[in-house]
């Protein structure tokens, strides 16, 4: 970490900015995608000092805490908020950063960790720490405790929440960068926008304003289908729209940015780039679009087509966006009692 007003590597004397990259409830894929910008990472290093990035560089929470408010120029925050420690870090980075960016699907809409919102802490811990699952061996039934007393004093673990929250459900967010993970070229484009100083309005999603279908090379006709097929049931032809072939393809509700990678390798879009501009609830939009292609006017038949073809509606419509959706989670039996 450098001291006051350093100069950047290209010798133009402009002070370097400060960049933080942090993760909460996420998988680390976002960091790998950042490194995927390849040698351009050197341009990033020329423009910014990396003050924190637990995945790829050293950096101490204490040093961030010592900073002035707003001292960090840009914070790329990936991951949802599942524990008290993550909420603390989100608040800390909000306070210390001029520009806080919800980076990737987890931070913007909850992503796969957000599917845990169909459960609560109790049921997640039961699954992980009791012999309910065949892979778990825990004869003494040891479970993580928020506080453990040892002779030297109390040891604390973060509290695990019943509900995973997105970053903007926790703190104020300046910009959003969608994707699971954001594609490296899109990350570089976003960095260029930040470096240009020509910033979009607060709250904007930095990305494309169209859907995956726009990039999909398949031919489209009028869509009318009698049954939804699962991917393992059929080898689709490589020319025609996958949805017309009965596969649940989320391309028509999903923001472009990936270049339609999945449909190009004969696999339906699963919606990792989240909702397009102006859409409040991704799953509502997708289910609405899919419902309209069902070729039936008989309520019982419609019900049957949906039940057979989409046995897991939440996993289908909200695979990446349950926590960020209007409903946010499944019905909770009861809040988990105080001790973990």
């Amino acid at each position, binding site marked *: 970490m450098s001291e006051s007003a350093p100069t950047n590597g290209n010798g133009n004397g402009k002070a370097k900015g400060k960049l933080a990259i942090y993760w909460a409830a996420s998988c680390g894929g976002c960091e790998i995608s950042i490194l995927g910008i390849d040698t351009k990472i050197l341009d990033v290093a020329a423009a910014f000092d990396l003050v924190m990035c637990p995945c790829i560089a050293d950096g101490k*929470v*204490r040093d961030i*805490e*010592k900073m002035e408010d707003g001292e960090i120029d840009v914070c790329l925050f990936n991951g949802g908020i599942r524990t*008290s*420690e993550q*909420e*603390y870090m989100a*608040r800390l980075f909000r306070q210390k950063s001029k520009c806080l960016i919800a980076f990737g699907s987890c931070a913007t809409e909850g992503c796969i960790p957000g599917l845990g919102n*169909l459960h609560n802490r109790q049921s997640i811990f039961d699954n992980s720490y009791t012999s309910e699952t065949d892979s778990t061996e825990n004869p003494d039934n040891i479970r993580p405790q*928020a506080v453990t007393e040892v002779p030297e004093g109390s040891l*604390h673990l*973060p*509290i695990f*929440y*019943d*509900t995973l929250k997105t970053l903007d459900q926790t703190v104020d967010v300046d910009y959003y960068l969608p994707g699971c993970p954001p594609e490296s070229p899109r990350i570089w484009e976003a960095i260029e926008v930040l470096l240009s100083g020509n910033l979009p309005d607060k709250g904007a999603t930095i990305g494309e304003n169209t859907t995956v279908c726009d990039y999909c090379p398949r031919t489209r006709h009028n869509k009318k289908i009698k049954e939804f097929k699962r991917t393992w049931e059929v080898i689709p032809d490589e020319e025609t729209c996958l949805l017309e072939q009965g596969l649940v393809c989320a391309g028509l509700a999903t923001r472009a940015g990936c270049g339609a990678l999945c449909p190009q390798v004969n696999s339906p879009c699963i919606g990792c780039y989240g909702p397009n501009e102006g859409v*409040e*609830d991704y*799953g*509502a*939009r997708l*289910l*609405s679009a*899919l*419902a*309209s292609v*069902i070729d*039936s*006017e008989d*309520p019982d038949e*419609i*019900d049957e087509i*949906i*039940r057979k073809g*989409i046995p*897991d*509606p*939440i996993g289908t*419509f909200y695979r990446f966006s349950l926590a960020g*959706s*209007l*409903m*946010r*989670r*499944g*019905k*909770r039996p009861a*809040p*988990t*009692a*105080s001790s973990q």
Partner: protein
Amino acid sequence: MSEQVFEPKIVGFLCNWCSYRAADLAGSARITHAPNIRIVRVMCSGRVDPSFVMKAFSLGADAVMIAGCHPGECHYIEQNYKAMRRFHMLRQTLKAMGVEEQRIQLVWASAAEGQQLAEAIDKMVEEVRELGPLGWSGNWEENGERIQALEDIVKEHEEAMEVTA
């Protein structure tokens, strides 16, 4: 103390051409129905985006009714069929989230069916009363230890800061 009767809040999306007129007719014909429904007039049942329904639930509705012209009689030719397909998909999705099926209902009522609409509303109110309040946003709240845990982290870090490196 007398026992409080639960009065469900129901949001109704009624189409302009049939069901809203049915509600109008019920009014002018002095047909009574339970006052628990809050009616939103939409041009067509096909205009009801599933997100309207979810927003209603997340903002405190106990149930949602979507009402439109009978199949085959849509002012916009076949949009009520789209509403029907969407309704079935939405109901199965909400069911998977834990929202009981009776909390979202699709009703057909022509402009002449004020009586039928009033009966459908009364029936729905009783069914939802039976189910009890939904209180969806209550699902999001953490228990009281969250604030304490955050304060503990701040305190711990402050104490750690006092130790010189």
